[in-house]
């Protein structure tokens, strides 16, 4: 893989990395045909973020086609490459990103003013593919707003606040902090504010839902959106279904998927039993029924989510082949697709590739991503005319 980012886009890339660092500790890098994907997920799998940079974002983008390369690395190391944003803006002219397969290294070379070259060699680990399954089109409530609106809303809540509840009606959106019932309800301060529909660029509330999710991870997206001035789209559905926030531009797309509290008492019961009961069937949109294909294998290092979300989820270390329920604890988990790298079985490889194209939004406007028809070929928006190997 070899790509070059020039000018102001270096800063945008840096900001994306910084905002991904608010989610998890590791950065998953995956160069794809439709662009470079940078992803991160938190340890409890309740927050996932992905930035996809189209080939047009780069002044040069070449990948070895057919090569399913993906890796992960400590996000702190990548952050240290792009440490000071103001310095980046002033001195960096270009950034080269090269993959050295032999040495398992990803090299970031910053071409700065006065002929200065800063080279960072970051080692990576092979990783499983990381993708969240979500379909923005199927969501009942869609909103779009200037980032300023959301920043101004979020400022009223203390930085330490974990969870916030968003409720929508036809004309309004209420945002208030969420307080666990069992906790000291009498001692906690409650903050609430109300946004009118005309403050949004787009406000379509078909279902009057109320969802609760973690605010902390959202702030990373807001910082990115505010600095790039891109409007933020918000997709809400019923409790338990993750909330999706995204920023889109012609050359990049960022999606933050945050799990929401599910208030379904039956799910709560399930979790206390250890969640080995039959799972609700996942959305009926996979092309094949092969269980192996949609593994929701979790990391062996499972940490429970924020302390007030009830019993910790059961460890899923051993059995990666069993199907896991979508909502493991009463905090619904994001359905995450992870295919084990070790699976050299071609049969298994193939459906995964298809999943990637099905479930991951390219820079095309979100068409039905979960169609049951196989997608024959994806329209190449921006071919890299320089490198047609």
């Amino acid at each position, binding site marked *: 893989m070899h790509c070059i980012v020039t000018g102001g886009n270096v800063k945008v890339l840096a900001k994306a990395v910084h905002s991904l660092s608010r989610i998890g500790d590791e950065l998953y890098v995956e160069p794809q045909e439709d662009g470079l994907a940078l992803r991160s997920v938190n340890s409890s799998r309740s927050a996932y973020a992905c930035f996809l940079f189209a080939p047009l974002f780069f002044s040069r983008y070449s990948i070895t086609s057919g090569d399913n390369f993906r890796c992960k690395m400590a996000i702190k190391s990548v952050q240290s490459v792009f440490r000071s944003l103001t310095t980046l803006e002033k001195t960096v002219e270009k950034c080269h990103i090269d993959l050295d397969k032999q040495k398992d290294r990803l090299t970031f070379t910053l071409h700065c003013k006065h002929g200065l070259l800063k080279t960072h060699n970051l080692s990576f680990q092979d990783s499983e593919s990381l993708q969240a399954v979500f379909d923005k089109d199927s969501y009942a409530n869609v909103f779009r707003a*200037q980032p300023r609106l959301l920043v*101004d809303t979020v*400022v*009223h809540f*203390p930085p330490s606040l974990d969870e916030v509840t968003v409720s929508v009606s036809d004309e309004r959106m209420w945002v208030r902090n969420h307080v666990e019932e069992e906790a000291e*309800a*009498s*001692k*906690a*301060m*409650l*903050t*609430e*504010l*109300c*946004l*009118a529909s*005309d*403050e949004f660029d787009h406000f379509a509330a078909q279902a009057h839902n109320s969802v609760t999710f973690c605010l902390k991870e959202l702030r990373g997206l807001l910082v990115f959106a505010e600095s790039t001035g891109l409007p933020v789209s918000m997709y809400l559905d019923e409790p338990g279904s993750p909330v999706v926030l995204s920023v889109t531009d012609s050359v990049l797309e960022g999606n933050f998927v945050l799990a929401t509290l599910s208030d379904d008492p039956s799910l709560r019961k399930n979790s206390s039993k250890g969640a080995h009961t039959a799972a609700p069937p996942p959305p009926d949109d996979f092309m094949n029924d092969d269980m192996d294909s949609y593994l929701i294998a979790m990391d062996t290092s499972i940490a429970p989510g924020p302390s007030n979300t009830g019993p910790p989820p059961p460890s899923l270390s051993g059995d990666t082949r069993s199907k896991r329920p979508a909502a493991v604890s009463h905090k619904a988990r994001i359905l995450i697709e992870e295919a084990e790298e070790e699976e050299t079985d071609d049969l298994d490889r193939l459906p995964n590739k298809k999943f990637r194209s099905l479930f991951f939004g390219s820079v095309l406007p979100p068409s039905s991503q979960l169609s049951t028809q196989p997608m024959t070929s994806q329209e190449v928006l921006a071919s890299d005319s320089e490198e047609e190997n």
Partner: protein
Amino acid sequence: MKFRGKIIDIACLNHFTRVVTTISKLTKMCVLRLTPDNLFFVLSGKVANGGVSMWCELSQANFFDEYQMEGVSSEDNEICLEVTPENLSRALKTVQNAKAVKVKLTKKHCPCLTIAAELEMRCVWGYIHLQSALRTRIQPQPTLSSVSRVVTHDVPVDVIPRRLWHEFKEPSMPDFDVSIYLPPLKTMKNIVDRMKNLSNFLVIEANLNGEMNLKIETDLVSVTTHFRDLGNPPWGDDASQDGGPSQSRDPESMVEARVDIRRLQQFLVGQQVNPSKAMCNIVHQSVLHLILLHEDMSLQYFIPAVA
């Protein structure tokens, strides 16, 4: 029991927020006493907080444009609430640019002080970018839409029953030996910060000649900072409570109080604005009484001396 106040003036809101923030830096919990004319933030000296006590008095007319209250009864026309000032401070800080802020005593899941703010009109500007062919001519077409938004913060409080009100009365002026104006608080704070690294206790001594020393002493080192020409407040006839100890005192002789340095530092750290007058009264080896007078509020802080 009812309370309803409204602040419209931005400067008043600013001052009020600063007062509450100062209080929040001094103590985690305190008592708020509401009377028809005043608000008091009170901390009574208990062992739990190291015997430190505080009394802060504000005249409501200086802050509130509207103020209505109905106390527990007509004879006891007062409301006493236990509150966490940090919550109040946090709520107020986020609404600094509000058109109006209402503070009300409400009952939600528990008694609360509700701070409801109407935030200023927001303007939303939209830009229309012409197509790339005409990229050179980007014409901003501002669309002005003004909305005002309401934010509410519910700060839980505990109502203090009447039988406990005696604990939160105004402290009487101690029979001090020396009263002296303080040096600039920032200077004091810097010195106390440095001294805190060396020792847990600090001796503050002063005399009637406008001289004050801050001393720490450990096995290895002793450090003293001397202040001169501070001036002594003219208490006049107030001072002669018991045959005028200050009159007969030798102006050169020092009285001292040895206090926990962290308490003194906490007091100094919390001060955000320079007061009009800052002074302290020392009762020899007994108590250090700090008094700050601002335009619109007065703050008294008592630190007991340790052996």
